[in-house]
């Protein structure tokens, strides 16, 4: 008989075999009539503009890095969780310090603003705003002191 991890390997292989067989059956029974339009990248019916493989929001990269740190440290906590109750207070304090350091890291990220997602802050026009920034509606020539550009962060 296989070991337990051998069975896990069989699970992985079976999943792959299942997908392979299903896709093969689908290939046998489905039609194949490719045309230029059909093979075009979908962009709401228009011709695709530009390359999709572009720079994406850097926030995703930061999140991935943070996750890597947190997940690796969590992995260390699992063996601790199985034995700390038998080892008593010393083991608990050691683990608690570890969790506190993780918590501190979360606070640091919070304070640094790495967890903030960029949000548009539209300026809603109000009569009071217009009066306050009356220089915006005064004729040119008088230099506006308060430059009030819409915040686009």
């Amino acid at each position, binding site marked *: 008989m296989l070991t337990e991890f051998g069975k896990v390997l069989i699970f992985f292989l*079976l999943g792959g075999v299942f997908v392979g067989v299903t*896709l093969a059956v689908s290939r046998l029974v489905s039609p194949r009539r490719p045309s230029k339009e059909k093979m075009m*990248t*979908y962009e709401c019916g228009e011709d695709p503009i530009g390359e999709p493989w572009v720079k994406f929001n850097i926030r995703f990269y930061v999140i991935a890095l943070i996750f890597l740190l947190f997940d690796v440290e969590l992995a260390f*906590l699992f063996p601790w969780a199985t034995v700390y109750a038998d080892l008593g207070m010393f083991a608990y304090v050691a683990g608690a310090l570890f969790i506190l350091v993780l918590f501190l890291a979360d606070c640091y990220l919070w304070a640094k603003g790495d*967890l903030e997602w960029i949000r548009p802050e539209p300026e809603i026009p109000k009569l009071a705003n217009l009066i306050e920034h009356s220089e915006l509606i005064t004729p040119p020539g008088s230099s506006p002191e308060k430059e009030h550009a819409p915040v686009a962060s």
Partner: protein
Amino acid sequence: MEQFIHDLIGNDLLATIVWCVLPLVFILGYAIVAILAEMKSASWFQDRLGPMRTGPWGIFQPFADVLKLLMKEDIVPARADKILFNLAPVIVFVGAYAAFAVLPFASEYVGADLNLGLFYLIAVSSFGVLGIIMGGWASNNKYSLLGAMRSAAQIVSYEVPSATALLIVAMMVGSLNLQDIITAQSGGFWNWFILGGPKSDVVLASGAVIHADIGNFVFLPLLLATFVIYYLSALAETNRTPFDIPEGESELVGGYHTEYSGMKFGMFFMAEYANMFLVSAVAAVVFFGGWQSPWGITLGEALDIPVLTLLEGVFWTAAKGFFFVFVMMWLRWTLPRLRVDQLMYMCWKVLIPASFALALVVGFIVVIR
């Protein structure tokens, strides 16, 4: 039961393969039921009838859907990265299926009885992210790439609170084996971890003893909060509403599987349903006693019929799992979709600090008692 299959088939390797195929059979049956349940529950929530044409009350609709997906033309965009595009559905489904290896369906059935089952589960459940990123990137489509990026960020972020929530229960049991976690909750629903865990000493299969008494009710509010954290993270990890921004159809068409058609789309779909059941069943195993009946005794044990015990175990696992899958469908038609920034706020500023605090408090109480 494993010995029975081995005796029946004779060949060791073949018997093990049959043993490992059983969850796949379960997933296929479950997917058929869940597709219909999703359509019907959605329509009933909206005061509609739902599918009614295929068979009585439309009960053959999922079969028609599967057949349709099988016979649809499989379109691979000309500008896509063909190898990765074809590999992505395989990886997504394999990731979902491999996690079923450690899920105990009954006292006699767990695909692979790993002594670090919980750890394996957390490791493998994030395997699917690779497939999602791969598919989203290889599609060479802007919607797919955006959807894949969002999905990956969401899944990996919520991995942290969900792993911490599971860690808290592991701290109480002192074992990562899922069967041990279920054994710790034996004796009735008042011993389930959602209600504070065992109330009397429990002896695990390994011989280790969990010391417990009636005072364990102090854990009730803590573990209730842990369960809420786990379930919310599980919703986010399976990209279900209200956390379904990766596939927000009003902005991203179909998210990472925009370019997929036919059975390759079907595989993403299957994987999503399999994952829904997986996280629900893990919630049932860890917090609701897994295959244990709510009153602690089974008819099969009382009458000494092993087959009945097995079926009862599978019934309770499936019933508890289906219940949480149903709650997911229910939430889908109840809650509006969150924004990306709200999603990240929820995870990093609410759930993670809360789960760390819970881990500290639960650990402290376990040590001083």
